[in-house]
Structure formats: structure tokens, C-alpha cells
């Protein structure tokens, strides 16, 4: 699918902005703090009604303004989708092809995007909680039953922890009633996470290999519970330590995702460039996964992806990106890419929130 037109008014520093990218690769150039990231953020907001930088929607409105509007027109293989988001003093109204949505969650899937942001490098470097959030967010969108299992699992953990609090030794039958449910919902989480990571690992390895020739990326699901051991047995074995610590110490809420570059954990041993490439490979794998599900490529957004990649990697990334998906890419480099990327790209320059096609 291709973004045909994006209009932003009062969204961060962008006012009266009209962006008409071409199919294929679009490069948005500009110095720092000119509105490059905000432009991508606006499309993300139209596609998901969420921002990657903030959970406070008041941060999105231009300083001193009370409202903002974002409108995106996207050509899908079989239809056109027009999304309008109007935000006025904290009230958000979303329209799809002119019809108001009663639930914002109905917006998901109308426009598919894959977004690589500066914050995403934390997926490799950051905490396990960040990686679990990535798994949970992706799976909640892909598998309807996942979100239900996740919400139930979290509620059961909260209830069970309350029972364990303060070193109390609860009635085993009472604890068992919660244990059994941890098993039911936890096994759904583990099974879906395993399948998702497995389907992501192959394409991620391939994408990584293409960008960083000669190096090998492995993405592995690291569940807290080993395969084949029933959850209830693990809980029974850890009961004493659970009571001592006053909380549920084992389960999928302790899961992790591991990135290995040439067999070494990327979190500790990889360079910044390698870490960035690993996350990028994960996003490119997601691109393929969404294509399998949606029947066409989503829109790929890469925010300042080139900043820590060497020339070789940048060039190879470029050949991967030309897979056919529309790509919106930002960079602070105002000149040197011409030689790198050739004439197939369309260039835009953004300055003080004003956009010109070059």
C-alpha cells in the first residue's frame, strides 16, 4: 500500500503541511529539529492513533494551540483508505472514509505501517520488559485471542501476588486455584510468542545477512519456563520462594527475547551499528510478516536509520528496501546520498516544518 497524501495541521511543529510521496523510496532530509520525525509520527498516529514518543496526546499539539488534524490518504491494492484524526482539547475523533469510528481499536489494520524509530534500538540494548512489550504489542494486533489471554494472565498474577504478600502462607487449595489459571493463560502466551518469534527469526536473519554481509543474526525466544515442564509443577517447586519473596517469581511475565550476532549475545557484545542493524532486520522481517497477513506490503518508515550505519551497510540496506514497499526515510545528511541511492528516490527537504520536493 502507498501513502498518497498526508496533511498535518497543528501537529507538533507541522502546520499546513501537505506531503505527497511517490511509490518506492522517499527521502526526507533536514537538519535536527525541523520536523522530520514529527512527519513520520503523524502517519503513525493516523494508522494506529498512537505515538511512539509519548502516551500524552497533549504533547502532540502545537505549542499554544488547542487542536490538531492529521489526514492520510492511502492507496491499497484494492481500495483507497482515507483516515482523518481530529483532536480538539483532549477529544479525539477518527473517521475512516468519512465514517466516524465508534471504537479507536477498529482503526487497527486499515493502514499497515512498520516503523523503525530511534527508541527501537532499546529492543536490543534495553530491558527484557521492553522486549516483552514488543512481543505483546505485535501479537495483540495479529492474534485476537492473545490480548484476552494477556489481560487474564496479568490479572491472575496481580491476584496471586496479593495472596502471597507479606509472607503469608496461603491455603494451598486457594493458591492452586490461581496457579491453574496461570497455567491456562500462560501457555497461550508462550505458544503464541514461540510461533511469532519462529516466524520472525528466518526473515530477520535473511535481512540482517543482506545488510551486514558475512555476519549472522539469530533471534530466539527465551521463555522463563522450559519446554515440556508443566507450569503447575514449576509453581509447586517455586512455592516456598514465592512465599518468601511475596510474589510470583516464575512464568511468562519473566520471558525474554534474545538477539545473537555470530553466536554472541548482541546486548553485551555487539557494536552500536550491529545493534541498530539487528533491530532494523527485525523490522524488515515484520514487513514480510505483515505482507503475508495483509496480502500487500505495509508502509515502511525508517527514522534516521542511516546515522550509525557505515556506507556499505547503508548501501546494502538500500537494496533491501527496494523490495517493493513504499518507504519513507529521514536523514540529516543533505547531500551525499545522491551517489549512494541513485535516481530512483524522491527527495524532500524539510525546514521549520515546511516541506519542499526537490
Amino acid at each position, binding site marked *: 500500500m502507498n501513502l498518497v497524501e498526508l496533511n498535518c495541521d497543528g501537529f507538533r511543529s507541522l502546520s499546513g503541511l501537505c506531503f505527497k510521496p511517490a511509490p518506492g523510496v522517499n527521502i526526507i532530509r533536514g537538519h535536527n529539529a525541523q520536523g522530520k520525525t514529527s512527519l513520520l509520527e503523524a502517519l503513525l498516529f493516523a494508522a494506529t492513533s498512537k505515538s511512539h514518543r509519548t502516551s500524552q496526546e497533549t504533547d502532540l499539539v502545537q505549542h499554544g494551540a488547542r487542536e490538531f488534524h492529521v489526514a492520510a490518504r492511502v492507496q491499497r491494492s484494492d481500495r483507497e483508505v482515507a483516515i482523518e484524526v481530529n483532536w480538539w482539547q483532549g477529544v479525539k475523533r477518527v473517521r475512516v472514509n468519512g465514517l466516524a469510528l465508534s471504537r479507536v481499536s477498529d482503526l487497527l489494520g486499515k493502514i499497515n505501517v512498520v516503523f523503525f524509530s530511534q527508541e527501537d534500538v532499546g529492543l536490543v540494548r534495553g530491558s527484557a520488559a521492553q522486549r516483552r512489550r514488543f512481543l505483546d504489542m505485535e501479537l495483540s494486533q495479529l492474534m*485476537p485471542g492473545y490480548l*484476552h489471554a494477556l489481560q487474564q494472565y496479568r490479572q491472575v498474577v496481580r491476584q*496471586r501476588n*496479593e495472596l502471597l504478600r507479606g509472607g503469608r502462607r496461603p491455603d494451598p487449595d*486457594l493458591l492452586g*486455584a490461581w496457579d491453574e*489459571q496461570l497455567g491456562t493463560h500462560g501457555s497461550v502466551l508462550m505458544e503464541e510468542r514461540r510461533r511469532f518469534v519462529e516466524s520472525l527469526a528466518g526473515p530477520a536473519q535473511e535481512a540482517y545477512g543482506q545488510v551486514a554481509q558475512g555476519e549472522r543474526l539469530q533471534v530466539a525466544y527465551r521463555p522463563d519456563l522450559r519446554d515440556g515442564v508443566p507450569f503447575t509443577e514449576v509453581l509447586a517447586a517455586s512455592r516456598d520462594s514465592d512465599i518468601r519473596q511475596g510474589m510470583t517469581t516464575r512464568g511468562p511475565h519473566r520471558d525474554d527475547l534474545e538477539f545473537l550476532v555470530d553466536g554472541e549475545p548482541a546486548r553485551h557484545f555487539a557494536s552500536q551499528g550491529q545493534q541498530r542493524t539487528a533491530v532494523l532486520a527485525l523490522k524488515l522481517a515484520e514487513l514480510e510478516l505483515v505482507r503475508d497477513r495483509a496480502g500487500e506490503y505495509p508502509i515502511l518508515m525508517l527514522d534516521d536509520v542511516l546515522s550509525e550505519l557505515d556506507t556499505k551497510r547503508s548501501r546494502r540496506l538500500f537494496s533491501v528496501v527496494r523490495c517493493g514497499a513504499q518507504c519513507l526515510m529521514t536523514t540529516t545528511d543533505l547531500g551525499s546520498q545522491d551517489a549512494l541511492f541513485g535516481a530512483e528516490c524522491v527527495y524532500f527537504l524539510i525546514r521549520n516544518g515546511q516541506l519542499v520536493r526537490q
Partner: protein
Amino acid sequence: MFLDAPSVERLIEAFRKLPGVGKRSAERYALHLLSAPEEDALFLSEAVRTARERVTTCSICCDLTETDPCALCTASDRDRSTICVVERPAAVMAIEKGGTYRGVYHVLHGALSPLDGIGPDELTVGRLMKRIEAGGVSEVIVATNATAEGEATALYLSRQIGERGIAVSRIAHGVPMGGGLEYADDVTLSHALQGRTRL
């Protein structure tokens, strides 16, 4: 708001404590009662008082009743060997509307929820166990809600009762009758598929 009438404020506060009543509705109810004929307003207060005075919980099933034991527990045509356990009195009314259940009930008045400080002692679990110990019960159907708390209550009861060699069953979860599958939410539908039965 009613600077001169703290009694109205009190009335509004009282309405706000009811489930599902917000500030606006509470004000509407209060103002309605104050502008309605006096006997209508007093009828409401009288109805609340009488119901509170007359209604107690049944000493057998713990459902709300004016006569103890309640009509369902004393009815000659009910099968006292089957007990259906529910969270709230409203669930008894719902199942009775179906008209096919011939057993008796037990109302727990809630579900296990450590976060709310509710354990077995805060529910009528002890009374249920006494009923079972007294004998004559062959099956207990657990019809608590399909929430984490309702499920935990069901599992806890099955552990407690199962030890005594009595059949414990859980009601099925599935699609509403007479409705198209396309109207069922996806979680219910996937549960219905998991709980499929052989034809």
C-alpha cells in the same frame, strides 16, 4: 451546588453510591423525587425500608428471600441432590428464567479476589460445605462468572468438594443461541471452538 440545602446533597450522594449511577443521574433522581408528589417520594423510601426489613438471606442457599428457608429450597419438585453455585442472587433469577434447571442453588455473594480482600471466609463457602457434608448431594454445578475471579472460585470449590467424592462440573461457555456466529466476539468464539462436543 445547593448551598442552602445540605439534605439534597446527602440525597445525591446516596444515589451516587448505587451501581452505574454517576453525578448527573444522581442529581436527576434527587431533583425528580423532590419535585414529584410527596406520596411518590415517600413510597420509594417506604419500599426500600420494607424490602430491607423483610428480606434476609436463606439459611440454606443464602439467596435473598422473605421467608426462611426460601421457596426454592422448600419446593417439593426440586431435586435437592444437585446444587448450582452462583456468585449473585441475580444469577439465580437468570437461570430460573430459563426454566429447565430443576435442582437447587447456592449463592456465594461474590467471588474470590485477594485484591479486594475476599477469601473463602468472606463468601458463603462454609455454609456450602456444611450442606454437602449433611449428605444427599450428588452433583455440584459451578456457575460462577467467566472472569479470572469466577474461574479461581470454581477451581477452588472443585478442589474442596472433589475431595469428598462428589461430581463437580462447570457450566459451558459458548455462543448465544439463535444468534449468528458473526455476532459473537472472537474470544467467546474461540472458547466455543475449544469446548466443542462430538455429534
